[in-house]
């Protein structure tokens, strides 16, 4: 249950309600919202308690979340949350573009990819150091050295960087190299040990939707991050597994308008992993922005044919530039802008 209070509610009054709930064994969570006090009851609130609190003059509204999450529910914030990834905002009026190769392969390739992504108009550089590959025989990434090269390429091109963390044991490497945003991949969306480990380190987290995760499971995973201290969560829709085999996954654009109602978190789309076919990435990016995405994350590579992973779905530099330009047009048409 989430209680939204009137703006003039005093801290003393709020504290009195918190104490009353906690005395009844109901844990509470205070929203960081500065415009008005908002309080979530983490544990179930008996009907009679709810009715009594709802009748208090300071209580403006009481909202029941659609699932068992609290902190990521739309009602927990008055305005949508804006997540700052080292100067690039996600969730504000601006739409952000994340671009880069699937894996960091070498200093030369990631440097070239960063420069072309920056010239194309991208805002954040992506690249994997630790790669969750389906086959144990496929390229597994350069590991910690990959993170170093990624960060150096980001610094050199003037872009923050995002990279996937697969295991809590890798966290020191991400912190040592000051990776700006930690990505939790689809396969790890419900790795709660990992979510708890990274939530409190002060870095934004991009949480990809699991291959077969429902929206409720996805938001519940996001709640883990929020409950353990992460206040910079970005959701990333990357396609789900369906009966369709013509594309790598099925991009579920329905989540964009729906999650706007359910959560205050920013939402971006990864059309590269959704489609797996370069020609589909630009139209799916445009559709994502039109449907309300706060950004897109796409794979690009200076020479896709030589890529060690996912080259078949990578955009060429020229294609990325066109995608960013078209994103700008669609964003403007729906009342937004590029970051």
């Amino acid at each position, binding site marked *: 249950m989430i209680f939204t209070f009137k703006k003039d509610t005093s801290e003393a009054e709020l504290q009195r309600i918190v104490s009353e709930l906690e005395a009844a064994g109901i844990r509470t969570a205070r929203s960081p919202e500065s415009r008005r006090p908002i309080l979530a009851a983490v544990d179930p609130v008996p009907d009679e308690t709810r009715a009594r609190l709802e009748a208090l003059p300071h209580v403006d509204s009481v909202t029941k979340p659609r699932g068992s999450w609290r902190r990521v529910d739309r009602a927990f914030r008055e305005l949508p949350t804006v997540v700052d990834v080292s100067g690039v905002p996600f969730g504000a009026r601006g739409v952000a573009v994340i671009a880069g190769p699937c894996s960091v392969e070498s200093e030369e390739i990631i440097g070239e990819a960063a420069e072309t992504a920056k010239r194309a108009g991208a805002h954040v550089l992506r690249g994997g150091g630790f790669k969750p590959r389906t086959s144990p025989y496929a390229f597994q990434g350069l590991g910690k050295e990959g993170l170093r090269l990624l960060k150096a390429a980001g610094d050199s091109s003037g872009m923050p960087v995002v990279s996937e963390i697969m295991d809590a044991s890798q966290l020191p490497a991400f912190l040592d190299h000051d990776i700006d945003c930690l990505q939790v991949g689809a396969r790890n969306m419900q790795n709660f040990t990992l979510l708890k480990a990274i939530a409190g380190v002060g870095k934004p987290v991009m949480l990809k939707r699991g291959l077969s995760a429902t929206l409720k499971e996805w938001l519940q995973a996001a709640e883990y991050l929020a409950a353990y201290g992460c206040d910079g969560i970005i959701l990333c829709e990357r396609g789900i597994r369906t009966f369709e085999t013509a594309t790598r996954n099925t991009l579920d654009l329905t989540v964009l308008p729906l999650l706007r109602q359910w959560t205050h978190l920013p939402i971006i789309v990864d059309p590269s992993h959704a489609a797996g076919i370069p020609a589909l990435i630009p139209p799916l990016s445009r559709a994502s922005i039109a449907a309300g995405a706060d950004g897109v994350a796409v794979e690009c590579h200076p020479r896709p044919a030589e890529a060690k992973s996912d080259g078949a779905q990578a955009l060429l530099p020229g294609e990325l530039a066109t995608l960013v330009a078209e994103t700008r*047009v669609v964003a*403007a*048409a729906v*009342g937004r802008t*590029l970051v």
Partner: protein
Amino acid sequence: MLRTHLTTLDRALLRLLEERAKLCASAPSAEACAPSIEDLLRRADGDIDAARITEVFEAIHEGSAPAPKR
């Protein structure tokens, strides 16, 4: 109905003009962000004549070009 359609289009045009001006603000010179009128005329397949298209885009350029550097 007509008013709704026109207002929606006008708002989109305004945002596109603002985006153009934002890009031009970082251009090294006014010439660098001049529209390619020839290309636009080749692509024009609506009811606006060439002279008017030229006139409109010249006005857009004038309105969005960066101020000359001193």
